[in-house]
């Protein structure tokens, strides 16, 4: 037997044993966050009655909480994504009717792995395989708009109701935007060379059939890649959030980001488009701002427009879409985000 194969399977076995242990530790740590934070500021001789103590407590409570949720959710996403190679997703969507197809596409947009620079190949792959334009757009909108890092942060900082609302409204925007773009019959606004490729059959190497240990390994790799990249932003964000939480007076933000300020939502969307920021860095600050009177819908609208409507992504799409289609795309998505902002401000 090949010796390298043996060590590899041994390593996989080790991971399989390690996983339940890691999961148990995760639950244990997550259920004792307040005690840990209390204990930690006690060590510094502080109490939550002081500004410094309160700020530090916020930081020491939120940091492990957010990092734990982030690790957990990113791991699960990494495993789920092994089931949805782009080719598989395309096969699932080809020939779907509008409506059902848009809903499926939006759902698949969340779980199909691809980095933002793959938007164009994916787009062409879908359209050339006969996936209708509107359904393709539902997919392309859902993918960046519903961000797993944002989801983890919302869950950690605002609870499951807010996270679920974010998920539901994000899906709704993707579905409706796709339906509208489909209705407008904008196929003629694809670049000519894209339409020419239409007839071609796309046959990239599909994902190899993976075993469960390999899927779990993919989840771990996903954690290493994503959590490894965003944790500094999370720390900086929570740090800033802690300062605001401890020192900025109550209701300070209400005047210009409160729910009574009707123009705050559109202003947030317009402000968000040219920006390209990491969701991870923004949300903890957002939490602290909201504690001081900013409205959740306004801040969420800002976050969504930063993530889903970034200028770099639009420039990439320009390679396959003509301006009228891009303008429609931006307008439809921006309107959707506006609605999300107002709905959040209204319900919460």
């Amino acid at each position, binding site marked *: 037997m090949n010796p390298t194969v043996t060590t590899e399977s041994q390593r996989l076995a080790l991971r399989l044993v390690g996983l339940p242990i890691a999961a148990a530790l995760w639950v244990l740590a997550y259920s004792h966050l307040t005690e840990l934070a209390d204990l930690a500021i006690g060590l510094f001789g502080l109490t939550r009655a002081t500004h410094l103590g309160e700020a530090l407590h916020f930081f020491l409570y939120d940091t492990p909480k957010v990092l734990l949720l982030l690790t957990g959710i990113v791991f699960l996403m990494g495993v789920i994504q092994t089931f949805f190679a782009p080719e598989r997703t395309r096969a699932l969507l080809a020939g779907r009717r509008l409506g059902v197809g848009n809903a499926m596409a939006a759902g698949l947009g969340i779980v199909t792995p691809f980095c933002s620079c793959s938007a164009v190949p994916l787009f062409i792959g879908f359209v050339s395989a006969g996936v209708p334009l509107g359904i393709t757009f539902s997919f392309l909108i859902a993918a960046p708009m519903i961000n797993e890092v944002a989801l983890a942060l919302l869950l950690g900082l605002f609870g499951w109701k807010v996270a679920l609302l974010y998920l539901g409204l994000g899906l709704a925007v993707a579905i409706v935007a796709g339906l509208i773009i489909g209705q407008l019959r904008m196929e003629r606004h694809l670049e000519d060379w894209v339409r020419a490729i239409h007839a071609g059959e796309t046959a*990239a190497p599909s994902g190899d059939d993976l075993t469960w240990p390999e899927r779990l390994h993919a989840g771990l790799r996903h954690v290493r890649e994503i959590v490894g990249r965003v944790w500094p932003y999370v720390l900086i964000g929570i740090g800033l959030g802690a300062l605001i939480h401890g020192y900025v007076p109550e209701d300070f933000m209400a005047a210009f980001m409160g729910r009574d300020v009707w123009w705050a939502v559109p202003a947030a969307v317009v402000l968000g488009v040219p920006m390209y920021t990491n969701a991870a860095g923004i949300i903890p600050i957002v939490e602290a701002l909201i504690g001081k009177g900013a409205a959740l819908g306004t801040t969420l609208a800002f976050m969504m427009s930063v993530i889903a409507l970034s200028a770099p992504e639009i420039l990439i799409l320009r390679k396959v879409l003509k301006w009228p289609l891009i303008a429609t795309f931006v307008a439809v998505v921006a309107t959707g985000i506006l609605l999300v902002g107002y709905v959040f401000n209204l319900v919460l």
Partner: protein
Amino acid sequence: MKHVKILGTGCRNCQTTLKLVEEVARAQGVEIELEKVDQVQDIMQYRLMATPGVVIDEEVVHAGGVPDRKKIERWFAPSA
């Protein structure tokens, strides 16, 4: 000598893939001619759906994400 093309519009994953392929080939003493394909039209000729992609002697061997180091080592392994 193998002719290797890295397909990708230039995001970080593509650069990582390029570096990794270069590194592994050098480590295994395989001589390769490395080429970067970054125009969308050219990339689409290979009909893949996600970048980065790797093409060896005009055959697509990988698409979508940075390939595993072990996978790359297999490409350059001396065929026994």
